[in-house]
């Protein structure tokens, strides 16, 4: 395996400057070629997209609306990926967070003082998301079950379960789907149209995680586990415990994303909550190089691309598929640029001995065994 998702120890200043710029230029060029082939003027299209995202208060508000779940799930994925735990389950964790937040606001907080309903809902969302990620984490830490599969499969369970709730069990009388609205005391307040205070959870968490990664022992442990699990074990780092702890936090953040989506935006459990944020989050985490502050930027750009992307259909009269292809065309070079740098370092070097470069799966297994 010549390729490793591992950060190089030092990156030349030139590469830091050139790679993203070149990637972006290539992105625009790829996109332009695709647009010309579809019969559209690329300049007018890019202008329409920019105008759609930032040309009005409404556009900006909608970019913020999309940013909120993208920042939170992006952080959730980034924290797990830091230790090379492939949490593909942010979508399901978000969905379970939305389910639990709705359940807490509508049903489980009966008899509690009204001011407690919002914090209870948010806490319920975090706990549900954490548990949804905790199951794969425990399976990984104790039995070395591949987390890519377990987290992915649990997405389908979560989404279907939420559908069952809002179509059947929790459906409001007289509605085709969707629960009753949650009580107003649980609503997050809005500004600039539909943007809501959930954004501050994202910004604050990003800052806290950045500080943790930079200054705490735990942040350091995650980094070591991610870059070399065997070395981490020799240093006395408890890998199994870290897997479980990190994933509880990762899942809780995705659960929070689902909770604020309900409390701030939809105000009920309904269709349109699970629209793929948890998968977009994987792209965001990588493009941000797993840096929490970077996640904010990339999530914001991604939200702008999604909202501006509406204009490809509305103004440019191109089919939706062109919009999706264009978005991919813009993203691929940006992603490839970053990853290419990471790969190239290890491509040059001869592989180290198996014991040192061994995959995390094996190390996780040994660590789990050592724990007993």
């Amino acid at each position, binding site marked *: 395996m010549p390729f490793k998702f591992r950060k190089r120890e030092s990156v030349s200043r030139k590469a830091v400057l050139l790679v993203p710029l070149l990637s*972006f230029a290539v992105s625009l060029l790829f996109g332009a070629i695709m647009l010309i082939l579809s019969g559209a003027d690329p300049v007018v299209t890019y202008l329409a997209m920019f105008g759609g995202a930032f040309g009005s208060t409404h556009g900006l508000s909608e970019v913020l609306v999309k940013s909120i779940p993208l920042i939170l799930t992006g952080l959730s994925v980034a924290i797990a990926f830091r230790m090379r735990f492939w949490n593909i389950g942010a979508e399901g964790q978000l969905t379970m967070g939305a389910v639990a937040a709705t359940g807490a606001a509508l049903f489980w907080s009966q008899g509690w003082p009204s001011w407690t309903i919002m914090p209870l809902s948010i806490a319920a969302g975090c706990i549900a998301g954490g548990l949804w990620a905790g199951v794969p984490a425990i399976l990984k830490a104790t039995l070395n079950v591949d987390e890519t599969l377990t987290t992915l499969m649990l997405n389908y369970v979560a989404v279907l379960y939420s559908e069952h709730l809002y179509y059947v069990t929790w459906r409001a009388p007289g509605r085709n789907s969707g629960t009753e609205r949650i009580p107003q005391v649980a609503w997050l307040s809005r500004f600039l149209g539909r943007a809501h205070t959930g954004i501050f959870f994202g910004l604050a968490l990003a800052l806290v995680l950045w500080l943790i990664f930079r200054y705490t022992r735990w942040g350091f442990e995650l980094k070591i586990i991610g870059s070399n699990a065997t070395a981490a074990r020799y240093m006395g780092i408890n890998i199994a415990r870290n897997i479980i702890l990190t994933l509880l936090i990762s899942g809780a953040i995705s659960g929070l994303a689902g909770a604020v989506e309900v409390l701030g*935006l939809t105000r009920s459990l309904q269709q349109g909550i699970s629209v793929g944020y948890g998968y977009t989050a994987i792209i965001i985490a990588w493009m941000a190089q797993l840096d929490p502050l970077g996640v904010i*930027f990339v999530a914001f750009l991604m939200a702008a691309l999604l909202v501006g992307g509406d204009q490809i259909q509305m103004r440019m009269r191109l089919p939706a598929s062109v919009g999706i292809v264009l978005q991919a065309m813009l993203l691929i070079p940006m992603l490839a640029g970053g990853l290419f740098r990471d790969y190239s370092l290890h491509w040059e070097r001869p592989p180290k001995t198996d014991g040192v470069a061994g995959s995390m799966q094996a190390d996780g297994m040994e660590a789990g065994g050592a724990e007993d």
Partner: protein
Amino acid sequence: MMRRRMLMLVALALVASLVVVACAPTPEEDETPFQTAFVYIGPPGDMGWTYEHDRGRQQVEAEFGDAVETTYIENVEQGPDAARVIRQYAQQGVDVIFATSFGYMDSMYEVAEEFPDVIFEHCSGYRTRDNMATYFGRMYHPRYLSGLVAGSMTEVNSIGFVAAFPIPEVIRGINAFTLGVRDVNPDAEVRVVWTNTWYDPVREREAAVALLDAGVDIIAQHQDTTEPQKAAQERGALSIGYNSDMRAFVGDTVLTGPVWNWGAYYIDTIRDAMNSDWQTHQYWGGLEDGIVLLADFSPRVPQDVRDRVATAQQAIIENDEVFCGPILAQDGSLMVAEGECMSDEAMLNMNVFVEGVVGTIPQ
């Protein structure tokens, strides 16, 4: 540090490039035609529900030429995304917005309040405002007729029905179809499978396959695409189409089907809006208006069945008696007494199956 700097650069590069782009000249519009927009749940290429709405939109273009401009957006999720898209159209100065899925109702209702000068038209819902109307068709008319065909042609007396959501619209369609089936074949049953989606080619197909596995020999449906019909054809079974004349896309195994014909409604509505004659309304036209039709027959349908359908069709146009008693409910209790007919309101809130349907409505 470096990674963050990189991100800053990416952001700067994006802004810089867009500033360059922004300096480019914008094409100016000479005149402002009347602006209309359509919001679709699937793509026009679904060959079914959205295909028919888009055919209506094209008829609008053909009718008005340069005087009316139409635009559409496809694959819009129900929920928060729909509200964003509808609001965006309203803000861009669109004069009339048509939202063509039931699930857009609450989003459109919310946005309509903010834009009193824009006309909002919602297909298949029930919430209205001074500037928001609803429109739909009495699809149960041709559904009943298609039931006559299916009931005549099933050999195993078991017909499958792939159904989207357990809401009155769909339940009413299943019931009308079943009444038609049982009027010609009292031994036949209609088995229902819910998909909980309007547009999902894979789920629609899987539901049809499950019904075929259960032994039905004809597939009917209330979905957006042709997938249930294709699944039936691949298994050597017959089908009843929906939305569009699916025989054109699938083949002669599609015996006929209840279909939409939106063009006239869209043209009339837009003309009213242009002449400032538009008023809020709840339009629900039937076979007599031509907004719903029965598609042409497959060559497989024998003449005596066609004659029977023609007679029934004339009867419905003259006097709509599809939901007139005696009608028994699924559990055998009396649903509509002899000599009585269901009111529009009762039909719009229908939530029990008639006798002959096999399946449950989640309550």
